[in-house]
């Protein structure tokens, strides 16, 4: 485990941030039965810290640990899978895996394979229509616009629906991208077509990328070894790039973009098309 030297002021600052996160968890558990909540755990640094804080809080308060949920987009790093399996056992986490089996099957489990819309089930076909695509076929890519929707959003919504989930915990942060800068700690999502109503709690919004690494290293929180190899942000395997060859926490976090190696333009590109009247 790499070591980090922090001043006592800095450690106090991080402890205050952790305490703030615990408050958010507490608010959620006062409103919802733990059984109706899920912690979204991708195996990345942010959701792992979220889970670590949640475990601590639950232990302290004598609350049962919520179940966790992870989405397999069909294009995952082996290192992430391994990390999830290891800490599911070590931390005794009850982890559900979600995947869009219907799309994977239609793609013959191969990236870049052509998926024929006619081969998909009714739900997936309806979802493609819902996001404004009139396609007969699309290439299977986890983080293309259609791929992202089918492999993540649909899996998420279906899971909430089938399990009667009322609230989820997400490891989002204000500083991870501009679009998140105004996200609230709690968002009540109203039911819409194909989306059940649910609450979204974001307990670590106030952690910066630097805070994440200082906390992770200072408190010996485990993390996926890819970060040590230079990845700063982990998404689908084929669309995440190393931003450098040095460990993430040693990179210039303040002056370079965390998600530079990740596709983040898909939503924005679609939003532009919508605004131009094309969607």
């Amino acid at each position, binding site marked *: 485990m790499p070591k980090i030297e922090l001043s006592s002021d800095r450690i106090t600052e991080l402890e205050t941030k952790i305490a703030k996160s615990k408050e958010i968890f507490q608010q959620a558990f006062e409103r919802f039965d733990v059984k109706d909540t899920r912690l979204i755990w991708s195996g990345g640094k942010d959701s792992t810290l979220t889970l670590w804080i949640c475990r601590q809080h639950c232990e302290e308060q004598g609350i049962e640990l919520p179940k966790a949920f992870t989405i397999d987009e069909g294009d995952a790093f082996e290192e992430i899978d391994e990390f999830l399996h290891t800490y599911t056992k070590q931390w005794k986490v009850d982890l559900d895996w979600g995947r869009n089996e219907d799309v994977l099957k239609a793609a013959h489990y191969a990236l870049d394979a052509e998926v024929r819309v006619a081969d998909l089930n009714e739900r997936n076909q309806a979802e493609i229509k819902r996001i*404004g*695509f*009139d*396609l*007969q076929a*699309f*290439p299977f890519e986890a983080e*293309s*616009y259609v791929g992202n929707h089918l492999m993540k959003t649909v899996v998420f919504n279906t899971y909430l629906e089938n399990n009667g989930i009322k609230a989820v915990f997400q490891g989002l942060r204000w500083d991870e991208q*501009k*679009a998140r800068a105004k996200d609230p700690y709690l968002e009540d999502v109203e039911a819409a077509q194909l989306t059940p109503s649910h609450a979204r709690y974001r307990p670590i919004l106030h952690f910066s990328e630097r805070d994440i690494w200082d906390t992770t290293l200072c408190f010996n929180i485990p993390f996926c070894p890819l970060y040590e190899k230079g990845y700063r942000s982990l998404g689908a395997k084929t669309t995440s790039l190393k931003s450098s060859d040095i460990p993430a926490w040693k990179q210039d976090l303040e002056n370079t973009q965390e998600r530079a190696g990740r*596709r*983040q*333009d*898909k939503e*924005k*590109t*679609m939003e*532009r*098309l919508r*605004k*131009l*009247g*094309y*969607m």
Partner: protein
Amino acid sequence: MKHVVLLTIDTLRRDTLTQFGCRLPLTPFLDSLIPDSTVFAGAHSVAPYTQASFPGILTSSYIFDTPRAPKLSEKRVLVSEALKRIAGEADITTAAFHSNPYLSDFFGWNRGWDMFYDSMEEDVEDMSPYISGAAIDEKVDNWLQTIDKGRPIFLWVHYMDVHEPYVPDRQYIDRVDGSITLSREQMFALFKDVLLPRDASNPETVQLLRKLYQAHVCEVDDYSRRLFDILDKHGILSDAAVIITTDHGDEFGEHGSLSHDGKMYSELVHVPQLIVNPPEAKGVVCEQLVSGVDIAPTILQMFGLESDPAFQGSPLYPLSEYHEAGVYGEAIGKRAHKIKDTDMPAYYYREGKWKIMYRQEEDSWELYNLDADPREQVNRIETAAEAETIKRKLKPRIDREHL
């Protein structure tokens, strides 16, 4: 010329330039470039909307060369890729600055560029859903400060400002018609209530929309001037050929509709084009029919390179050797902003005074004599002796295997 700049102005109608018959001085700057340019009076876009016409400009290919897909096919060769491959990785610096989502990294256009700015990370307003030409110019300026100008540069700059919604600034409205008193909200309402539903029924409203459109044309003329100043400031302009054109025009009720859908009439596919500081033929008006697919081969030629085997067009210079064989275009014949899977292809072919079009959906043919009928109002498919001959020239393109 050492450098080549391609300036494309989205949705720029041919008749916005004085050179092509505009009676209002909408583009004083672009007009001032005419004496230093080859003017291509017969320039045609290969399609009436971005996704189908830009493969022509930047990959010298037609939309149905590869299966219908939202993304640019890997099989197409972008001019930036051809430059890198033919000249070698380090020889020519390639850069793109634009704000058109259909040409973004997400849709596969970021290939072969040393610098690719598509602005998709920026937040934009509903009333102006793109980065303005002013901001694009600034990006170009900043970038030029950082690079080695000793090496040849291929720079592509694209302005979106003319594209709807038409919500121009007051100063530009005043240049067109100071009596227009619409608020920004009212202009935006015209976009939602009239333009998007393609309601061309009220001639006064159509005329108003046209004026708002023209105000945006005045605006990009300013940005073009600024771009030239920037190129000059960095010592590039005197040693650069600048190709100025558009991806397509725009309709204001000429054929019953608005905006730019899958129709092949002149207001959409007969486009403005000039090459400033050309290798020859400065101050010449070239009347030959030339096509969007000729642009990429011309760029390679200007760098002294052979054309790419994948390119379907021909270099424009020397003009005397350009073999005019008629111009051709194809697109999905959509009748609304959005392309539906069920929308079928539409085609055109122009040779001399004749222009023929075919729409698969209605299995309908149209033939126009552009000398006598430049507005394409009288369909001569049943009455022209040449109809069968021209039809035979378009048929092989239609019968080409479609994926």
